[in-house]
């Protein structure tokens, strides 16, 4: 990109577009605003690219214009359905003899069309600025101590805000406790030839000291499978928020929610704040609470995402109370399949927080043989234990 500031480049590109196509430039800006309202993140650079792209093609060819805008304004296939719906509504055909918009199968992304593209369009059109969240005064130590032990299910609104603040502070603390990547290291395993030789040239070519370097830490991938049926919802939310705070120490996190069906919510959780992200998830995921079909959802996961999202350094975290209304044999089979691919499986169960808990739920009992760690997840204290477990896996 040139040294010019982006807004000035944008102005120039839009002016050029306006000179050639009149109101098209204003429409482009409006269309970009609509996309943003539909939660497609856009940068000025992308709007510039879109403007330039329109300048290069014959805009009377509706299909070409669609593709030009899509390739310059989108960064993931999942947004394509919303994009197409907005495009159809916003860029109405110019002339009656124009061919009607037809879906181009080759560019449609996988999955998400079912998550209501038309609904997103309505929201985008109707969207007004959200009210800023209110801040509450910081809590005292003893109040916080009580909070750490309190079951998430008993939280009041104030507790939720305080807990979020607590988690925001906890995550970086856990993260920095891991060994930072030190490239040059005194006792590393590998020779650092480059630095050794540099030094040798200062001493007449004699290698007086061998410098070493340490191997980079091979970081973990994480897959979260969150049960969001009924009472599990609140635990899943806290876990997800917590894990995302640890993300800088992980290679990547994929998040799925399930109840009777499985949804990949990874792209939706990319929003900057968790409050916004969860509202977004809640709005777009159907079956957020209801019955559970763990086995079937695991099967969905294994088939659709298993190969792509699970590698030799992938830890799978399942958070569920294990009450499965589906077929237990399916659950057993799919756990075995999951175990074959994953590095570790952690199962988090809020019921484990109760002293007298035994894994009586049929599903829980069926899954147990394939689980590496079975941990509670009912309060902040248990979450931080999960965090320590994860970090020790990342270090190992």
């Amino acid at each position, binding site marked *: *990109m040139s040294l010019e500031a982006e807004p000035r480049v944008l102005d120039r590109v839009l002016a050029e577009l306006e000179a050639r196509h009149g109101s098209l430039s204003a429409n482009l800006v409006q269309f970009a605003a609509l996309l943003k309202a539909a939660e497609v*993140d856009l*940068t000025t*650079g*992308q709007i510039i*690219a879109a403007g*330039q*792209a329109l300048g*290069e*093609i014959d805009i009377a060819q509706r*299909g*070409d214009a669609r*593709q*030009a805008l*899509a*390739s*310059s304004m*989108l*960064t*993931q*296939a999942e947004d*394509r359905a919303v994009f197409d719906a907005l495009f159809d509504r916003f860029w109405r055909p110019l002339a009656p003899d124009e061919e009607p918009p037809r879906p*181009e*199968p*080759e*560019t*449609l*992304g996988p999955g998400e069309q079912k998550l209501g593209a038309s609904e997103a369009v309505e929201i985008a059109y109707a969207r007004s600025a959200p009210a800023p969240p209110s801040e509450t005064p910081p809590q005292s130590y003893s109040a916080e101590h009580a909070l750490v032990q309190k079951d998430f299910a008993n939280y009041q609104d104030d507790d939720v805000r305080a807990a979020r603040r607590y988690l925001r502070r906890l995550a970086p603390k856990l993260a920095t406790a891991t060994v930072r990547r030190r490239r040059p290291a005194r006792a590393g395993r590998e020779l650092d*030839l*480059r630095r050794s*030789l*540099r030094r*040798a*040239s200062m001493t*007449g*070519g004699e*290698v007086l000291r061998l410098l070493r370097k340490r191997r*980079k830490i*091979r*970081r973990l*991938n994480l897959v979260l499978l969150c049960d969001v049926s009924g009472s599990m919802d609140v635990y899943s939310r806290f876990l997800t928020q917590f894990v995302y705070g640890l993300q800088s120490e992980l*290679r*990547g996190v*994929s998040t799925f929610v399930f109840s009777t069906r499985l949804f990949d919510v*990874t*792209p939706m959780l*990319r929003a900057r704040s968790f409050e916004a992200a969860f509202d977004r998830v809640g709005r777009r995921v159907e079956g957020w609470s209801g019955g559970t079909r763990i086995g079937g959802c695991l099967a969905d996961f*294994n*088939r*659709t995402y*298993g*190969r*792509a*999202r699970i*590698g030799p350094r992938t830890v799978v975290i399942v958070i569920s109370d294990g009450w499965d209304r589906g077929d237990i044999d399916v659950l057993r089979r799919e756990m075995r*399949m999951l175990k074959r691919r994953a590095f570790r499986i952690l199962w988090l169960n809020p019921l484990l927080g109760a002293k007298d808990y035994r894994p009586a739920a049929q599903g829980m009992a069926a899954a147990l043989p394939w689980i590496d760690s079975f941990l509670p997840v009912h309060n902040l204290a248990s979450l931080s234990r999960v965090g320590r477990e994860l970090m020790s896996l990342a270090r190992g």
Partner: protein
Amino acid sequence: MFDSIEDVQTALAEQRYFAGRAIATTVFLSAKLGKPLFLEGEAGVGKTELSKVLAATLGADLIRLQCYEGLDASQALYEWNYPKQLLHIRLGETDSGPRKTTDRELFSDEYLIRRPLLEAITSDGDVPPVLLIDEIDRADEEFEAFLLEVLSDFQITIPELGTIKAKHQPTVVITSNRTREIHDALKRRCLYLWIDYPDFEREYEILRTKVPGIDERLAGQVCALMQQLRQEDFYKKPGIAETIDWGAALMALHKDELDAETVEETLGCIFKYNDDIEAFREGNLVALLEQADVNKAM
């Protein structure tokens, strides 16, 4: 350079790559705007093939950087040739007693090993090379940040040599199989293109071109069945490469028609996982074949 979208389509077709209008449009814009192409899609839909063909079309060299976990600057950019440097130091000693080997001698072009990124930047052919950064999802996230830096101004600073700037900006193609999400900052620098499996007509065209001499009817059956199989749940759905392999295998076996027995004998061409083969055997093959025949007729 291309003059129009049709131009791109024709040029790619001459290299036996049958691109739909959307692919051609994006390739055209990428050339016009000088932006990298970011190709995403399932394994086996022809992402890497597109960049190879693009290089052939432009008459450019293809420089390929295959990504893997732990890929770092010394593998992607440049490295000093240490053994050669050591040798140089030793030779300096034997000439006329010990003498001081200077940095300038040791860290010159002669001792520099060019890795793909540096090679692409320093290339001085008539046509800028096509730089293929393949399967970026396999590399670590730090590498993305590093790549972002290189792609933003196409210059590289080597402390011992100074800053090297590209004479002409290479044509950059980045592919991802989506085993993890690539950071948006990188994608925003690029034109994004999702490539899906080809439809029946396109796949038929590809198969007939890649396996010359294949029986028309057989090719139709193969493609129809492949289209059908991709609708089913498999761990690894068969890609275009599988279609071509299978077609070639059937040719070698002198088959001119698909029947249940033939399919069973050649299952290894279609599926790469035993789980999938078993799942396939459990399914109703005869019904699938009939369905494929019906679809083809439509």
